[in-house]
């Protein structure tokens, strides 16, 4: 009997030992596989953390061009509307969260820094007639963040060339971040920020990106309980005003006519409660005035 106990015990210990030996032998292979996978990531889409830091730098450049309006009441209101829509978006949480600010300029525009910082101009706020229009503008910008449109150029460039960063990948994994690696990363970062800033604040998005952002915005607005049709009516009003005045509105949002045509096709048949719409329009007016 005792012999059987010993045999069982030894068998268990032997099996356990085999497993440990297997693990020890397997570890370097797994490490190699992991390093290989990590190296491939250099070509992969940009991580949330990278996007956040690029977005911060883009935002820092935007606010160096436009002063930020110091109006806590209006900023709080815009943040309430923006966060409501963001939570109903496809990406309710970002690495650094969503933040909203108003730029003190009469220009009518809105910018979505990668990662979640969204700017609208005072001129844009003045051009709005109700809360649902504000939500529509913010939903469109949130969609650009969800779709990572601000960093699309960087993603494309990264896909085209793996870049020399791959060579440093193993160093990064074991935590040896050398000064030369930081310098290399800084150069890469500067280039990335320039690309993102040019997309977000200078050249604007492609018409295709705008159409996709409109499509997503309609979805987020519907989920939130806002009237998605105001996205179209607001664009039409801006377009008509632009035609009359000869001044192009929302210059970083091209393809206005095509956008409106597509939007007409994409709008869902939503029954909007007029009482609730008016209720929100009243609080909008109360805040703006």
């Amino acid at each position, binding site marked *: 009997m005792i012999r059987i106990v010993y045999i069982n015990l030894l068998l268990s210990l032997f099996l356990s030992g085999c497993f440990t030996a297997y*693990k020890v032998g397997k570890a370097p292979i797994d490490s190699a596989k992991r390093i290989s996978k990590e190296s491939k990531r250099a070509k992969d889409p940009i991580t949330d953390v990278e996007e*956040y830091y690029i977005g911060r730098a883009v935002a*820092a450049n935007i606010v*160096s061009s436009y002063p930020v309006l110091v109006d806590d009441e209006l900023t709080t209101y815009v943040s309430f509307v923006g966060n*409501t829509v963001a939570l109903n978006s496809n990406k309710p949480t970002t690495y650094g969260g969503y933040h909203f600010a108003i730029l003190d300029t009469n220009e009518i525009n809105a910018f979505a820094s990668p990662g979640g910082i969204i700017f609208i101009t005072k001129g844009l706020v003045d051009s709005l007639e109700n*809360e649902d229009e504000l939500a529509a503008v913010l939903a469109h910008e949130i969609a650009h963040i969800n779709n990572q449109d601000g960093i699309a150029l960087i993603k494309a460039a990264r896909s085209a060339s793996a870049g020399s960063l791959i060579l440093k990948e193993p160093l990064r994994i074991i935590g040896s971040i050398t000064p030369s690696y930081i310098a290399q990363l800084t150069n890469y970062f500067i280039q990335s920020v320039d690309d993102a800033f040019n997309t977000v604040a200078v050249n604007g998005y492609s018409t295709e990106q705008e159409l996709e952002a409109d499509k997503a915005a309609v979805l987020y607005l519907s989920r939130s309980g*806002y009237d998605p049709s105001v996205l179209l009516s607001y664009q039409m009003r801006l377009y008509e005003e632009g035609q009359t005045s000869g001044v192009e509105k929302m210059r970083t949002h091209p393809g206005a006519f095509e956008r409106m045509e597509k939007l007409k096709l994409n709008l869902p048949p939503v029954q909007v409660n007029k009482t609730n719409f008016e*209720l929100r329009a009243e609080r909008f007016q109360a805040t703006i005035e």
Partner: protein
Amino acid sequence: MKQLSYFFILIVLIFLSNYTKAEIARVVTKENAIREDCRFYSPVIAKVTLNDELEIINGQGDWYKVGYQGSAGCIHESAIDKKYISLSSIDETNQTSTSVYEVSLAGKGFLNVEQNYKNRNPKASFAIVKEIEDFEISDQELTLFVQNGKLRLP
């Protein structure tokens, strides 16, 4: 003989327990909250920050029920990385790691890079960006805003 079998089963269970681990996820946002119920703006049970490890209990739609420092609650799926391997057991698994890459960049790497960027671009107003990021609205106020406007939160 019966006692011997129990003894054997016990040893096998001890052996297996070493290799059965709960699924662990990592927080991928700067800060977040474990909430009482699986919805935004449910009362907060615990605050979590980047790279905190959470034990996955189960999935509930877009949310996960997780364990954290002895308490259990909900966190949205977009706030965690399930394909995570603990840094303390980096060679003990063959799962795909998305963590180490991000951890290194989120830590020393990117902070240094951003500082270098600031030095080369003194006009870039990072102080104002910080003010924008620090501008907070409360959970209760937003919930009230949504209710008063007859809006919806997920």
